[in-house]
């Protein structure tokens, strides 16, 4: 590829990305309710968080489960700087927002360096608990700083909404990770994940690779945190509890550790699952709850049984799968309908809104039981794959850096 053509293509794609994000921002502000705009905003944040954790966890294989810590460092950097220095600065709102994103990323990157260093000595679960502990320590320190608002939170002005910047950040994060895997640099990270001893014997510097992954991943999370803080104008330590770390980790594993596509899809889905029931104001009676629970249990056990025991022709196998996927939940609903005739079971009702985390938990367990390697496994989205699905043929020369 000659240089001129390269810059033309690169310039074009960057322009498309920026314009696309601006267009999304404009469309969302014009046509959607504030509540939905906020959801779109948070979706972008979660994509960034999941993809950046995937770099540490899925691609480099360092089992970090405290990603909310970096998110928090970014948010508090943005919040504190704005509170104390915005008035004195000559920058406009958007320029200030961009400056805050960079500052949040930088400080979170430093935090990533701090957490990355023990990863040289600790493996697996020990590293996991250290990363988790780092998040808790930071949170408790913040709670005890009155200057940072303590446990009641930190408010500051102005609020700057940068929906387009959030999505641009998500696009950049995805692009950076994908680029890494497209070049041989990514191979060093994957090699560290696969076998540290062999990677070292191949001349790969473990320290540098692991710490780099931590710093880049943390910086993206920090940038996302700064954007969140500037959007809300108020942050408190409860926004960055362990649950948030677990949610991000779940997105990575559910999507398929190492797969960027998987992280993005899982981030969107898992983010949407607790939010959708808020929009639908439905009451569910105990009868339907029992029916659906039975349906879910039947669904998982039948599908697992089918996965493990079925060795017949493929077409028939697929038909059985489809029949189970459609039939069993319907049967569950039917059972619910039957039980609904008992007044004891139909009088007791629950708002769907209160069930949202139960639904999330059940989804998690079901996906893990049926597809432990994650929805996408090690695979990435590619046009060849679309072609394969559409035409049912295997494209020639499959090449993928997993």
């Amino acid at each position, binding site marked *: *590829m000659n*240089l001129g053509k*390269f810059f033309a293509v690169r310039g074009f794609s960057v322009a498309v990305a920026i314009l696309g994000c601006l267009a999304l921002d404009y469309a969302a502000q014009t046509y959607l309710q504030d509540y939905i705009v906020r959801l779109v905003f948070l979706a972008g944040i979660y994509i960034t968080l999941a993809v950046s954790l995937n770099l540490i966890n899925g691609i480099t294989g360092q089992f970090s489960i405290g990603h909310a810590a970096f998110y928090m460092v970014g948010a508090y950097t943005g919040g504190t700087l704005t509170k104390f220095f915005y008035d004195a600065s000559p920058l406009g709102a958007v320029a200030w927002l961009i400056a805050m994103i960079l500052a949040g990323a930088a400080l979170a990157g430093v935090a990533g360096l701090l957490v990355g260093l023990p990863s040289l000595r600790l493996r697996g679960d020990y590293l996991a608990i250290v990363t988790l502990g780092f998040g808790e320590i930071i949170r408790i320190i913040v709670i005890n700083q009155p200057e940072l608002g303590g446990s009641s939170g930190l408010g500051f002005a102005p609020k700057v909404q940068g929906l387009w910047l959030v999505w641009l950040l998500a696009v950049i994060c995805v692009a*950076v990770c994908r*680029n*890494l895997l*497209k*070049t*041989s*640099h*990514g*191979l*060093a990270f*994957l*090699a560290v994940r*696969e*076998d540290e*001893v*062999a*990677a*070292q*014997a*191949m*001349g*790969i*510097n*473990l320290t540098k690779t692991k710490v*780099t992954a931590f710093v*880049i991943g943390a910086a993206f999370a920090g940038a996302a945190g700064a954007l969140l803080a500037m959007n809300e104008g108020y942050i408190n330590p409860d926004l960055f509890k362990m649950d948030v770390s677990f949610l991000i980790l779940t997105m990575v594993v559910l999507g398929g550790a*190492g797969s960027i596509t998987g992280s993005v899809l899982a981030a969107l889905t898992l983010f949407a699952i607790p939010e959708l029931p808020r929009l639908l104001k439905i009451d569910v009676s105990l009868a339907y709850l029992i029916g659906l629970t039975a349906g879910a249990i039947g669904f998982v056990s039948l599908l697992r049984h089918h996965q493990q025991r079925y060795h017949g022709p493929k077409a028939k196998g697929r038909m059985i799968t489809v029949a189970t996927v459609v039939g069993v939940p319907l049967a569950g609903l039917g059972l619910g309908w039957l039980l609904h005739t008992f007044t004891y079971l139909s009088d007791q009702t629950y708002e769907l809104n209160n069930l949202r985390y139960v639904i999330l938990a059940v989804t998690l367990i079901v996906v893990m039981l049926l597809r432990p390697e994650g929805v996408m496994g*090690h695979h990435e989205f590619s046009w060849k794959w679309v072609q394969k699905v559409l035409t049912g043929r295997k494209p020639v*020369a*499959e*090449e993928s*850096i*997993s």
Partner: protein
Amino acid sequence: MSEHLDLSQVNVDELPVVPNPLLKLEGATIQFGGLIAVNQVSFEIMPGDLFGLIGPNGAGKTTCFNLITGVYKPTGGSIKFEGNEIAGFNPSKIARAGICRTFQNIRLFGALSALENVMVGGYLRHKTSLLSGLALWPSAIRETEELKEQAMQLLEVVNLTDVAHARARDLPYGKQRRLEIARAMATNPRLILLDEPAAGMNPQEKEELKEVVLRIRDEFGKTVLLIEHDMKFVMGLCEKIVVLDHGEEIAAGPPSEIRSNPKVIEAYLGEPV
């Protein structure tokens, strides 16, 4: 004649040419607690050698490899590579200095394809920065392409071009062994260490492997140090052999000498040498 040699009188050109050893172990020792796994082992490997390291089970052969490649730090003695002390360096630095190895229990990057495995081997000669990779800069793309080409050539040497895109984990055992050799070759080492490359192979695979090893030495000019259990394989392949037993060096020399050395026979008691 005066006791002091007057250097100014010596004509450098008239001195016999003695090549410097590529790798020189002097009294290399490692102790784990009370156990001395490798005790005072010394040998020299000259450039272009096909060198064998043999000994019964538990003799300390693999530990010796681990000392050379930096997995363990020796507790005594010195290890010099091209005249420079390398004892106690970390493994990646030693790999960069020009020593690369394979592993007794295969350690491939399982989820990566065979081609990618070999590309990882070429990674240490990378010149572009990580930043150019993250930005997908043309130089990084070009370098990746080059690495891919080199890796393909190496796969050809070990006869694995047909499975270049298969996952390393899915390859049959013999192919995995050869892939490990190709991966080590990709670091472009001056000394390559093979840890029981023929273990678990059938006679035909062993013949193929022998050819590969000879090609590495003759065609690519690498120096080879190998550990092997199979006496026939070593005797037929190596030109110099060191025998270890209980961490100590009990014999050294060409195969013909080793074959008749009573100490070696004793160590291998019962095994035809």
